[in-house]
């Protein structure tokens, strides 16, 4: 189903004198953060759109180059602040690749839980905000009900709801408490039913269908050219998921499907996100069933002594351990010379860390490939010809987060 909304470009050129410039954002409630869109309008039709970014720039990459490897972990929380656990995992994996540190199987499984919980949580917010922008207020309240459940789980995982700082190089900070498992199981059990509820309200609703189908069509070629990743890429029908393409954390052992769309419009991207949430719940169930016992931090070998803090009990009783505590605390980690790139399938797309080390206590260069940054670029290409009301659908369906875009 497509709508003949495309504006004749030549007509638009003639009407330039009548066009109106409008700022959407950075304070506009529907722009999700501090994105500013400079829209050129002809009546209600958008002639051009220039996204202005940088209002949330905090020089994260530079901070990463002045801080030791471990100290940067809390800063990764604040990249995609809707999925902080996922960012922690991505950064830890990149560091481990650089330092050739292994992660024990139990910690890997815990990281998968982190990844999938934050994926569900981020998609829920994306869906809720998307629907609310298009006038379906109920969804927003309902998704926040489930997000509350997820945040309680995350609070049990790491002691904080939002600023998690959970992973360490070589594992995770603490083991999951006993009461986490029944809570997580309860969530996994009831979550598919919740997704059914959202679907019942939206998927076959004529208003929703009219406002999303045929809007913001991203072709396969465009999606590839702009370097889209995540649900935005898959919505356009390209089967690429980092978890399948370059499995990490043992994702090859879990059974899940990757959804792809056919048209590449806002409706397809919505469907992909819903599908991904269901698949994430399935992965969670598999982790609950198969999580191995064992250590959560890699403390094997002499190398690990230099990278991982010793157990607290040993620090209090053993002189050697106390010395190591001070060594790791003050000297931190001397990474080997080298450069690595590691990309993770985050909720918004591929979050990549490029680390270059000259063998010091901190990175020589730390580059963050934020998926939202890449995904946002397509707005300029996509918006001309749409009505201004459709911009809301577009923004919602692209589902970006400025913390990661501006860094």
């Amino acid at each position: 189903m497509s709508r003949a909304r495309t504006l004749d470009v030549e007509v638009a050129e003639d009407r330039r004198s009548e066009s109106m410039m409008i700022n959407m954002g950075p304070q506009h409630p529907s722009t999700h953060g501090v994105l500013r869109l400079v829209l050129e309008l002809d009546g209600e039709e958008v002639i051009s759109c220039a996204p202005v970014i940088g209002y949330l720039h905090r020089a994260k990459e530079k901070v990463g180059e002045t801080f030791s490897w471990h100290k940067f972990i809390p800063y990764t929380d604040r990249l995609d602040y809707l999925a902080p656990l996922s960012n922690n995992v991505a950064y830890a994996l990149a560091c481990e690749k650089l330092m050739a540190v292994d992660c024990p199987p139990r910690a890997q499984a815990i990281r998968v839980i982190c990844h999938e919980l934050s994926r569900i949580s981020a998609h829920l917010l994306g869906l809720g905000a998307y629907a609310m922008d298009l006038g379906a207020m109920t969804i927003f309240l309902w998704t926040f009900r489930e997000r509350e459940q997820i945040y309680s789980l995350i609070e049990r995982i790491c002691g904080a709801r939002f600023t998690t700082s959970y992973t360490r190089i070589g594992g995770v900070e603490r083991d999951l408490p006993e009461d986490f498992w029944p809570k997580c199981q309860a969530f996994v059990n009831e979550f598919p039913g919740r997704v059914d509820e959202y679907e019942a309200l939206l998927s076959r609703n004529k208003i929703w269908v009219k406002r999303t189908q045929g809007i913001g069509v991203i072709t396969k070629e465009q999606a590839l050219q702009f370097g889209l990743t995540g649900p935005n890429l898959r919505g356009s029908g390209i089967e690429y998921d980092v978890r399948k393409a370059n499995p990490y954390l043992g994702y090859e052992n879990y059974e899940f499907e990757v959804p792809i769309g056919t048209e590449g419009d806002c409706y397809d991207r919505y469907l992909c996100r819903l599908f991904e949430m269901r698949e994430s719940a399935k992965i969670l169930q598999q982790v609950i069933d198969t999580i191995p016992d064992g250590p959560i931090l890699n403390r094997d070998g002499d190398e690990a002594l230099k990278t991982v803090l010793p157990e607290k009990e040993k620090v209090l009783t053993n002189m050697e351990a106390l010395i190591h505590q001070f060594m790791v605390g003050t000297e931190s980690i001397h990474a080997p010379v080298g450069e690595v790139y590691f990309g993770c399938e985050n909720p918004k797309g591929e979050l990549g860390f490029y680390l270059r080390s000259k063998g010091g206590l901190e990175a020589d260069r730390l580059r963050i490939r934020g998926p939202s940054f890449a995904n946002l670029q397509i707005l300029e290409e996509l918006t001309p010809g749409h009505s201004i009301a459709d911009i809301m659908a577009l923004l919602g369906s692209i589902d970006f987060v400025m913390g990661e875009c501006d860094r």
Partner: protein
Amino acid sequence: MAKVVDRRKLNFWEELYLPAIASGMKRTFAQMFKPAITLQYPEQRPEIFDDYRGAPGLVRDQDGREKCVSCQLCEYICPPRAIVIVPGEAPDQPDYDYSEIEKAPKEFYIDMLRCIYCGYCEEICPEQAIFMTDLYELNAGSRQELVHDKAKLYDVGGLRVDAIQKWKDKNASPGSEERKNVPPSGNPGDGAH
């Protein structure tokens, strides 16, 4: 492997739109008869677990001893640089158990406006002297009030019962490795005693 998402055309019934309203209303009204999930904060409070990462505080052990020995590891590790410690000499310990401790913080500040509650200070502390407490609501009339000083930090941290009392246990077993290597006369702790 990849699954194409289900995208059917709306059927005649769905095109009518009215059934969607009815179905939506049914689900929305059904919510009224389900228990509310909101909390009436501040009358109702969320459950806070022991391992929650709230405001950091300094702790005393079960003997009432202030545990921080001002090694400054937390100051060093703190990512937002919220901690400032002015080291000083430990007060005279009348008790033999703690006579080896030489240092204690003269001043200890944590700027709660900078603190990001990451818990690194608790993780790194070799004395188990600083802990993330369950205090999650901080407010003040001025910025200065939110810079917690030593008295306030001990107030926040309170008392914590230790399973391992590091200094006591060490003295309780004079034959332990650490003691063996130290010549008796060269131990400043013994001298002070």
